[in-house]
């Protein structure tokens, strides 16, 4: 479904990704784990067209994404829950959700999806008229996730969705991810919390300073000593 080949990204003179390749197949949850600054967010942003690709290819359903504008990419069915939530602080919770459905034309279905999001996150329903900027960190994370769902993505990119969340919520988020996946959404999940990520994913890649150093099924990765030591705290 998504194929990344030899992807290189530069920030001014510094190269953040040194030619990484991986793929995500339809219906999978694929996780990308790695330490801080490894280039995980950069990878997601490159897929979404937010940072320019200096070399390499990204194809989605056989179509080349390199050079497309971010909104063009969203229209093709890719959506991202960005790192650090990035909710629209000056819009209400409800308007944030509506923004998620910006490219959609079917008002009724949008309404229905919104109800669904509220069911999933009753906290958001309680505060639907509050400005998103005054929500707490966790509430914002829920909103960011809900907002991404509103575009009914085929491929959902998630950048550290568990960051700064209460344990209860972390589990909640991961179970939502699994639900979504069962409903047919393909997911590329970036996580620090390798523990949880590897529990729900099918396959994973380990990124270290701009290179993919390991890949394989979850079972394989869980066996790997290096992964155990660095990412599972074992």
């Amino acid at each position, binding site marked *: 479904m998504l194929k990344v080949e030899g992807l290189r990204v530069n920030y001014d003179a510094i190269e953040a990704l040194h030619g990484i390749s991986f793929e995500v197949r339809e219906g999978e949850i694929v996780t990308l784990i790695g330490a801080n600054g490894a280039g995980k967010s950069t990878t997601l942003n490159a897929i*979404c067209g*937010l940072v320019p690709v200096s070399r390499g290819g990204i194809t989605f359903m056989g179509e080349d994404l390199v050079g497309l504008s971010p909104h063009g990419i969203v229209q093709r069915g890719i959506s991202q829950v960005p790192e650090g939530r990035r909710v*629209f602080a000056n*819009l209400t919770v409800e*308007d944030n959700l509506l923004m*998620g459905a910006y*490219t959609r034309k079917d008002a009724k279905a949008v309404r229905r999806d919104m109800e669904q999001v509220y069911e999933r996150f009753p906290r958001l329903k309680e505060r639907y008229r509050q400005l998103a900027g005054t929500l707490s960190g966790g509430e914002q994370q829920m909103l960011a996730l809900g907002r991404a769902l509103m575009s009914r993505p085929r491929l959902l990119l998630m950048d550290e969705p568990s960051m700064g969340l209460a344990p209860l919520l972390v589990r909640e988020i991961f179970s939502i991810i699994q639900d979504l996946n069962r409903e047919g959404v393909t997911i590329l999940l970036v996580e620090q919390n390798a523990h949880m990520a590897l529990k729900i994913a099918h396959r994973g890649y380990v990124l270290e300073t701009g290179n993919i150093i390991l890949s394989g099924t979850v079972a394989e990765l869980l066996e790997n000593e290096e992964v155990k030591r660095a990412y599972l705290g074992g």
Partner: protein
Amino acid sequence: MNLLGEVLQQTVNGIALGGIYALIAIGYTMIYGIIKLINFAHGDILMLGTFMAYFVLMATGPTPLGLVLAFLVAMPGSAILGMIIERFAYKPLRNAPRINALITAIGVSLFLENLARVLPFIGPNPRQFPTPPSVFLSYGGVGISNIQLLIIVVSVVLMLVLSYIVERTKVGKAMRAVSYDKPASALMGIDVNRVISFTFALGSALAAAAGILFASAYPLIEPYMGIMPGLKAFVAAVLGGIGSIPGAMVGGFIMGLAETYTKGFINSQLADAIAFGILILILLVKPSGLFGKETSEKV
């Protein structure tokens, strides 16, 4: 004329002036809202828009039809101009420190003014803006001129249209989303560049409309004509709460009335001082302006 009559008359004068300020202020506020830029060139877009209308009116004469035509030419014309300026002067600076964009805006402003001065078909000399002969409709000493009436009607209609666009439509909400976080908006599928262009187009079109009204009331137009109304409208925008459209409208009327009352009842030299005084007073009581949202930074 008795004092009450005089007060009423000054109120009419103030509202007409305020309507013009409000229209300009809306453009300032929208553009500030979306790219956090004080668009110093806004007053100069107003000037160029007014000249477009001038050439139309010179051809048609100051007839009602000609006036309608002038709006139809100048508003889209200025909208395109605003978009071009944004594309070439401001867009490349979107990620630069805000002060850089501000300097560029000042540069664009000076450039447009002085370019207009050397352009053979505009030139430095003031020109008489064609206006219909003035008619003074008077009721017991208090009255309103046909031009003041035109200003009030046109500005109110335009403001209603604009409020609808921004509050109710999807693109209006997209404008607010883009104003807060551009990359995140892009992730929503919003074409950020288009939305910003659209904002400039809308603001510039309103400036052109304000310019035509302004020139109809004060029918002498020249390349520097946009500076003062621009500055005062900017104060109006801040006073109302920069970024807030209802704020810009109310701010415009407050400025118009304050200026007129000060000139009429206190002392004309104090008009600017009092306008700025009101601004500072309002900011002290409500730092975000009358309609601005309190945005204490959450840490």
